């Protein structure tokens, strides 16, 4: 039986891990490579690296971090942040990424998903979407959640799947950083039609939030979080044990 995945997300700027609340107020934490090793040892099923660097120097530091991680950590690595072209795909895949996540880049160029899926396969293309409620509907936001694109989130995700996205990361801006649980309503709206895996993101504050997520929405495939793992508020090993206790299939790493 396939297990539910637990995915720590590392926002990386200038070679350092960073996490903010509601996308503002950034704070630096630790060496991404060390963090990745710890996570892998404690049972993380996958790692997401988001490059939030603006400068090209920072970008080189990012690929160095990625390469060093891939040399030491043997679980799937997804890379996102600043992916705008097939050249960007190529750059991060060569450094050890297994999947590439597109967000603003796919909004700016809607052909990007289909072109990337054709070259690298559907399984390689992850569509990451930042969604916020506006006037009673789910709206797609770009540029790290700052710009309202006017796009309807459900339409955009459907289109992304049709174009070849192999996985969806649904990040609710409404619950991100609030730590009161995942956005079950928004996730239910997407899992109702998605034919590809859906990863829940935004809002996890404690172990119970993941249990609720997988029990209430069995079609959700994975839960993603950042700061609660970085700050040790939730240990992945404890979370996995609790999942098994609740009859949620989980992969346990032997210590």
């Amino acid at each position, binding site marked *: *039986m*396939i*297990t539910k*995945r637990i995915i720590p997300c590392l926002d990386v700027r200038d070679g350092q891990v960073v996490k903010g609340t509601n996308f503002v107020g950034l704070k630096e934490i630790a060496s991404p490579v060390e963090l990745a090793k710890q996570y*892998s040892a404690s049972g993380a*099923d996958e790692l997401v690296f988001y490059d939030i660097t603006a400068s090209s120097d920072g970008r080189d530091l990012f690929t160095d971090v990625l390469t060093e991680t*891939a*040399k*030491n950590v*043997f*679980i*799937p690595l997804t890379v996102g942040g600043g992916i705008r072209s097939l050249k960007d795909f190529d750059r991060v*895949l*060569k*450094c*050890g990424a*297994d999947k590439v996540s597109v967000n603003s880049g796919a909004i700016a160029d809607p052909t990007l998903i289909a072109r990337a899926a054709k070259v*690298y*396969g*559907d*399984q390689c293309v992850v569509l990451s979407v930042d969604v916020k409620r506006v006037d009673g509907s789910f709206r797609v936001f770009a540029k790290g959640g700052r710009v309202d694109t006017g796009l309807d989130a459900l339409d955009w995700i459907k289109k992304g799947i049709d174009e070849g996205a*192999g*996985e969806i990361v649904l990040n609710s801006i409404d619950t991100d950083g609030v730590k009161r649980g995942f956005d079950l309503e928004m996730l239910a709206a997407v899992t109702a039609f998605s*034919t*590809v*895996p859906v990863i829940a993101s935004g809002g996890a504050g404690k172990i119970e939030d993941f249990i609720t997520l997988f029990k209430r929405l069995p079609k959700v*495939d*994975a839960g993603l979080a950042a700061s609660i793992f970085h700050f040790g508020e939730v240990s992945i090993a404890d979370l996995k044990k609790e999942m098994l206790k609740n009859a949620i299939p989980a*992969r346990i*790493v*032997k210590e």
Partner: protein
Amino acid sequence: MTVILDYGVGNLFSLGCSLAAIGEASEITSDAARIEQADRIILPGVGAFRDAMEKLKSSGLISVLKRAAAKGTPLLGICLGMQLLFEKSYEYGEHEGLGFLKGVVKPIPAAGVKIPHMGWNALSFGQKKHPLFKYLTEGDCVYFVHSYAAVGCDDSVIALAEYGTPVTAAVAKGSILGCQFHPEKSGEVGLKILRAFCEMKEGEV
């Protein structure tokens, strides 16, 4: 020394790193002479079956692989690399494979499950555990990403995974082995599989 076959399909960086992590000397190459000298061969692969077979053909490596198979050099196909070992694939048409193993490659039945089969799934070994899994325990999880799977290969199946239906997870017949999942992305469990493979010697399996 283990050779990772480079025929222009997929990213071999992680595979090379995972062999380095278990202390196995490896070389990523498409050079026939180097492959002939190898103690073991890994046939990787991602993407589409037909493209991969065409690239194998145009790189002139099919005859090299056939000689290695006849000689009994341990050969491990990974993911699409495993699928290439079979007689035929029905991915976008009908395409001939290497034919080292009996069986064909068909879409995973989509009844009630999402395709691709992506994520960590448990292995079951059946009655007898193959030496490739000598360091593993029944139920250990490995990482899968695939939409097609081998069928009609009952005589070579050494591990199954449950995904709506039993899915062929690994196969072996003599020195020819294959994993549908990615050992190089399956954490410590995956490294244990690669270690067991790297302990296999020509003529002994």
